[in-house]
C-alpha cells in the first residue's frame, strides 16, 4: 500500500501537473471572481466562503481523470487487479494520493486567497478546518467517478457531470461552516456533518470504486 502511494506521489511530482496545476487553477478562479462581481469589499467578504469552496471543488475536479486513466492505458491497473493488493485498497490509496497532491495544497493556499476576498478574520480557522475535513471526501468521491469513466475515450466531461452532483452535500456543509464562522456563530454542527460525509464516503465508496474498476477491466 505504501509502495503504491509513494509511486503515485513520485509520478505526480515528476510528470508535472500534479501539485501545481490544481493550485494554479484554484488561484485563477478565486482571482477572477472579483473581476466578475466588482471590487466592493463588503460584497466580496460575504461571498468569500462560497467562492473559496466552489473554487476548491473545481480545482479538485480538474485532475480527477488522471487518477486511473494512465494506469488503465499502460496496463498497470490490470496488473494491480491480479496483484495481492485488493482493488478496494487501491481505490483508497489513489484517493489519498489525489488528496495529497490537490486537496492538501488547497487547504494551505485558501487562507492566502481569503485575504484577497476580504474574508472575515474569524473565518480563517473554519476555512482551513472545513477544507481539511471536506477535501478528502471530495477526492474519494472523485475517485469513484474516475473509476466509472476510466474505459471511456472522452470521459473527462462526463466525469464532471457525474461527480458534481455528488459534491453537493460536501459543498453545502463546507461553505456553511465557513459562513457561520465568519458570522461568529457556532460551526460545530456543519463541521461534524462534513466529517460524517467524508468518513461515510471513505467507508462506502472504495467498494463501489473497486466494483466499477473490475467491470471496466473485463
Amino acid at each position, binding site marked *: 500500500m*505504501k*509502495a*503504491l502511494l509513494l*509511486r503515485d506521489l*513520485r*509520478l505526480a511530482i*515528476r*510528470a508535472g501537473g500534479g501539485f501545481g496545476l490544481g493550485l494554479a487553477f484554484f488561484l485563477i478562479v478565486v482571482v477572477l471572481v472579483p473581476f466578475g462581481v466588482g471590487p466592493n469589499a463588503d460584497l466580496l467578504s460575504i461571498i468569500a466562503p462560497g467562492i473559496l469552496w466552489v473554487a476548491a471543488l473545481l480545482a479538485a475536479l480538474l485532475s480527477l481523470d488522471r487518477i486511473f486513466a494512465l*494506469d488503465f*492505458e*499502460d*496496463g*498497470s491497473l*490490470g*496488473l*494491480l*487487479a*491480479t*496483484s*495481492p*493488493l485488493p482493488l478496494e485498497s487501491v481505490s483508497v490509496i489513489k484517493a489519498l494520493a489525489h488528496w495529497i497532491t490537490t486537496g492538501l495544497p488547497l487547504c494551505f493556499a485558501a487562507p492566502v486567497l481569503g485575504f484577497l476576498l476580504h474574508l472575515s478574520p474569524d473565518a480563517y480557522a473554519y476555512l482551513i478546518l472545513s477544507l481539511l475535513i471536506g477535501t478528502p471526501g471530495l477526492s474519494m468521491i472523485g475517485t469513484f467517478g474516475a473509476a466509472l469513466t476510466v474505459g471511456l475515450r472522452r470521459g473527462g466531461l462526463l466525469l464532471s457531470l457525474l461527480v458534481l452532483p455528488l459534491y453537493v452535500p460536501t459543498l453545502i456543509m463546507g461553505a456553511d461552516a465557513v459562513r457561520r464562522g465568519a458570522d461568529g456563530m457556532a460551526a460545530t454542527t456543519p463541521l461534524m456533518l462534513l466529517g460524517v460525509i467524508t468518513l461515510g464516503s471513505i467507508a462506502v465508496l472504495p467498494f463501489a470504486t473497486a466494483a466499477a474498476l473490475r467491470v471496466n*477491466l*473485463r
Partner: protein
Amino acid sequence: MLTVRDLTCTRGGAAVLAGVGFTVNAGEALVLRGPNGIGKTTLLRTIAGLQPALKGEVLAAPETTAYASHADGVKDALTVRENLSFWAEVHGSTLDDAAFDHFDIADLKDRIAGTLSAGQKRRLGLARLAVVKRPVLLLDEPTVSLDGFSVKLFAKFLRDHHLAKGGAAVIATHIDLGLDLPELDLTPFKATEADNDGASDEAFL
C-alpha cells in the same frame, strides 16, 4: 499447478472458446496456438480472473498466477529500479539483482524508463515477471517488439529460472521460443452458437 476444465469464455456478450481444458504441472509450459481473433487473449484473461468464465472452472491456488501482456505497466517517469521495486513491494517480495541480470538491464538500473528504447522497455516489463515470483505465468504475446537477442534472453529466463525452479507457464505466442514446448491448438475449441447458452447476447436471440 494449473488445471483448466471445460472452460467457455466470452467476448462482447458471446462465447468465443468453449470446452477448453488442459493441465500444466510444475516445470511445464504450454503454448497456445491459433489464428488471430480465436480468443487467446480472452482465454488468458479469463484464467487470470480478470473476466468471468461462462462455464467451466480454473483450478489454481489463490494468488499464484501472474498475467502479462504487451501493456506491462512501465512508468516512463520512474527509473528502472523504481519500476521494479514497486511491483516487488506490491507482491511482498524482494528485488534482487538477478531480476536485472536475467533481462540484461543491470546497466540501466538508474535510467529513467522513458529514455529506454522500445526493446529495453519491453525487457523491463518482462523483468517484472522475475520480480513478482508467482509460480504460474500467463503470458500474452510476451515477445512483441523484442529483437532476436531479447527473445533468447526471455526463453532462457523461462527455462532456467522459472520452469527449472518448479514454475509453470501458459504462453500465447506466434513465434518459436526455441524451447520445444508442448502446444495446444485452440482452433477445435472455437465456440459455436450452441455454446452461447447463458451468454448475455443469447437471452435476446
